[in-house]
């Protein structure tokens, strides 16, 4: 096999494979990013769903507390009974319109629970955060109220502004004494009246000490505020209860481990079969909706599941696909190579067969032609019929030998064996001789040849080549331009170059065919050529021979018909050496 062919075949296999592989790898990476992104979004979506359970719990508790505190009488005994009988609340409180505590009243007889409650919450009451807005004690810059339906109040301790964590709550590690740190955030309810600054119902989250506490309250028509503190532990227990438990039958990869973490990031509750290693960073984390925005849900998953469900499969199918494509391409390449080389072999065999046959035909034909010409020359002038018949034999055998000459030249051309045999002579003589040879057949077809010789000098040229080229050109005229009724042959000589123009008056060659006619086996297909026999190699051979002879065969521009211009390098005899 030729090295070039090897390279072509290798490229043919390697290039598409490399391209595919590159695309595939990019695709896999893209897929992985996409998958991971989608995976994360999926997980976040599920965390949101899960978090909704806790949001609902807050809403439920809020409604329950509002229902619990729907009371006609506000004496301490009634309020104590509410707190005592309801597991979800730890304390009920009542404020007057100026924000003073009416229950549990600091100066009255308090039970231990009430005292503890006041200890936890005294700052809220001192700041009168829940008082009607006119009575609220404003601390310079510390209280800001957004006048909106979802009015949020953030009250930072006056003593020190606490470092805020990412979730917007005081950092627990701060060296500030825990009972001095508190942070209150109020979400006004939808029952919010026309006055946004005095919400009638609210849920306040209060960051103090250990974690969060929730206060639910309602403003009464007389401006008093009744509310309750949700029992912290019970709320935690309820949050745990709305979250799923661990089902050991689930797949550790699918479930992972989900943790509900409090404001300092320590777990309140975890579930899921997967046991993450210590210090494992959660894959996704989502804070709960306000008012519990300090809490978050974290999802831990084993690293292998992060690699993406099905990514291994993706790599596998990529490699498998590449292999399959590679095998297919290689198979195709082998098939085409074998087909190709078989055809080449067959073609070569055919060519060599044709060459051999042509060669075998050439010798007898030469004899036939020679004797026919002799007979023709010596024929009796009276016997016109015999003369004519001999003329046909001569012209036909000339045609045949031209054909054979073309075939042999073509075979040599293919083997790069075309050579010149320069001899001394006159171009015009040769042209005239060839034209004379064609005269009988031109006459038969009614073609009037005219010759304008302009190359009388003795020059060195390959007579056989010139004869072959002219033979081909005249033969074309005879075959395709007979309707033009004329052919004009003109020779010119200048320095060492001879130009021969053969112009007919036939239908000519359409512009787009002007180059193609020189390609091997190309025949213009139209009504003119249909039904005319030919090999399609005449012009190809002619141009090759002309080029071999230091010139060219071109199609000259012409008004009508086709005009071939043949240039040949013809060194004058005087200059050149011997033949």
């Amino acid at each position, binding site marked *: 096999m030729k090295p070039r062919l090897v390279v072509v075949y290798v490229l043919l296999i390697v290039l598409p494979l490399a391209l595919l592989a590159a695309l595939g790898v990019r695709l896999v990476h893209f897929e992985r990013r996409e998958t991971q992104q989608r995976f994360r979004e999926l997980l976040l979506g599920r965390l949101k769903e899960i978090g909704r359970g806790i949001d609902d719990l807050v809403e439920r508790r809020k409604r329950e507390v509002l229902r619990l505190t729907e009371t006609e009488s506000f004496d301490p005994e009634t309020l104590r009974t509410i707190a005592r*009988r309801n597991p979800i609340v*730890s304390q009920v409180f009542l404020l007057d319109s100026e924000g003073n505590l009416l229950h549990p009243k600091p100066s009255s007889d308090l*039970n231990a629970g009430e005292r503890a409650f006041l200890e936890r919450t005294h700052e809220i009451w001192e700041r009168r955060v829940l008082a009607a807005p006119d009575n609220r004690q404003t601390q310079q810059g510390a209280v800001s109220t957004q006048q909106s339906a979802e009015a949020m109040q953030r009250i930072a301790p006056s003593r020190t502004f606490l470092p805020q964590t990412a979730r917007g709550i005081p950092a627990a590690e701060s060296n500030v004494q825990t009972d001095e740190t508190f942070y209150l955030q109020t979400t006004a309810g939808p029952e919010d009246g026309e006055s946004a600054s005095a919400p009638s119902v609210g849920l306040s989250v209060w960051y103090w000490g250990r974690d969060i506490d929730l206060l639910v309250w309602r403003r009464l028509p007389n401006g008093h505020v009744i509310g309750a503190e949700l029992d912290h*532990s019970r709320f935690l*227990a309820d949050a745990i209860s709305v979250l799923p438990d661990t089902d050991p039958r689930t797949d550790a990869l699918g479930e992972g481990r989900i943790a509900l973490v409090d404001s300092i990031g320590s777990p309140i509750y975890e579930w899921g079969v997967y046991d993450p290693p210590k210090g494992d960073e959660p894959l996704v984390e989502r804070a709960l909706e306000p008012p519990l925005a300090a809490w978050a849900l974290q999802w831990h998953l084993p690293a292998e599941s992060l690699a993406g469900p099905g990514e291994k499969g993706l790599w596998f199918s990529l490699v498998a696909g590449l292999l399959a494509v590679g095998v297919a391409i290689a198979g195709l390449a082998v098939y085409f190579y074998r087909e190709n080389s078989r055809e080449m072999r067959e073609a070569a065999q055919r060519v060599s067969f044709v060459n051999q046959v042509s060669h075998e035909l050439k010798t007898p034909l030469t004899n036939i032609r020679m004797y026919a010409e002799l007979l023709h020359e010596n024929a009796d002038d009276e016997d016109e019929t015999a003369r004519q018949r001999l003329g046909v034999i001569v012209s036909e055998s000339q045609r045949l030998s031209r054909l054979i000459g073309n075939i042999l030249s073509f075979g040599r051309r293919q083997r790069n064996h075309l050579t010149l045999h320069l001899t001394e002579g006159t171009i015009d003589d040769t042209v005239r001789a060839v034209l004379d040879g064609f005269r009988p057949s031109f006459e038969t077809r009614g073609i009037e040849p005219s010759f304008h010789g302009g190359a009388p000098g003795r020059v060195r040229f390959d007579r056989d080549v010139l004869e072959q080229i002219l033979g081909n050109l005249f033969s074309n005229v005879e075959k395709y331009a007979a309707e033009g009724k004329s052919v004009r042959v003109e020779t010119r000589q200048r320095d060492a170059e001879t130009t021969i123009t053969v112009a007919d008056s036939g239908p000519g060659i359409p512009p787009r065919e002007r180059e193609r006619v020189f390609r091997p086996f190309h025949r213009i297909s139209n009504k003119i050529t249909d039904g005319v026999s030919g090999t399609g190699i005449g012009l190809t051979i002619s141009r090759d021979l002309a080029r071999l002879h230091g010139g060219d065969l071109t199609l000259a521009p012409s008004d009508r018909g086709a005009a071939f211009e043949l240039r040949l390098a013809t060194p004058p005899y005087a200059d050149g050496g011997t033949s």
Partner: protein
Amino acid sequence: MKRLPITKLGVAMAVVPILLAAAAEARVRTDDAVRIDVAIDKPVLLANEAQTAYVRVAIVGVPRPSAEERAPVNMAIVIDKSGSMRGEKIEKARDAAIQAVKRLGPDDIVSIVLYDTTVQVLVPATKLTDKGPVIDAIRGIGVGGRTALFAGVSKGAQEMRKFIDEERINRLLLLSDGLANIGPSSPGDLEDLGTSLLKEGISVVTIGLGLDYNEDLMSALAYKSDGAHYFVERPSELAGVFDRELGKAMSVVAGDIEAEFICAPGVRPVRVLGRQAEIDGRRARVFINHIYSEREKSIVLEVEIPPTDESVTRPVASVNVRYDNLATRSRESQEERIEANFTRSKELIDKRTDATVMVDVVQLIGAERNIKAMELRDKGQTEQARKILYDNNAYLLSNSAILKAPELEAQAVQNTIDAESLDEGRYESRRKAMQMNQTQWKLQE
């Protein structure tokens, strides 16, 4: 250290005739689930002197007509399956749980919750009509992980809530052998949870297994929810504890007991010994979740009585006890008033002193002193602690003799053992026994 309820009951009944007539009427009704007995330690007090007195209400469950007729039980068994439970501990825990399930009846509800780092509801709350699957599930319990105690109790309570109603006895059995290290795990968190659970009528019985659990946390949860707390050193004792608790649950005759003391004008309630109470103004309230058949629980309120003239009869307090009668499924109440007379005769005072009340008072004061000693020992004041325990021992012993109360002698013995176990190495395990004793003396479980 356990007192003998029947003997105690006998003594209590013997005292009844000398009590105030006003109280007697309440006891005539026959379908009552409990009998109450309100008494003051010294019905005759020293005149013209401010002094401390103790008002005691004893609540005794009536005998049940038959063993079959009992209120159904709603029980959650919450089992620690953390890594440290491996081996005999989990084996015995499984056996104890299976035994409990076998003993419960088809009307009872049981749920089994397992916890380690996470929580698994092994058996959701279900009526025990078919015990087979439940027992099979218990047999399959394995171990591993850390200790999410709070979450385990939360889930257990949630299961119980599915069937929570007045006629069922709600009890959560919590077994743990290690420190809670996932989720809320301070005694405060569990105290609050216990308080909240008691409001729903759920008592938590905490069982500490081995020497590695946090007894403060476990006893706090039991105490606040009016449950019981056990220190079980050997896994083989588990079955006994489960059985005992189950027996108690099956013998409950009254639930959601609220005892309200209203002191007479001039009398100030100071504190309730042993139990949690809500005291505001002249009112004191105590909540008890369950009263068992033929067993007594008593509440002792310490009051301050102002100087009063001789021969005056002064009302001291009225006590109203409200409870759910589980046999009739109705809320009932009984009320008694207590008065005191005043004299200058110390002899008369001593003579009229109510021995049954004194036994309760001494026992509870003995418990308080034991707690005080433990606090001192925790602060490293070992010798002071030891002295208090020996003194306490002497106090209990002398009263045991005077009051002819063998249960005080048993309590005295415990204090001696405590005193001798304060040194490094022994104290750790003894402390667990002390916590158990203290909870039991306080709650009389």
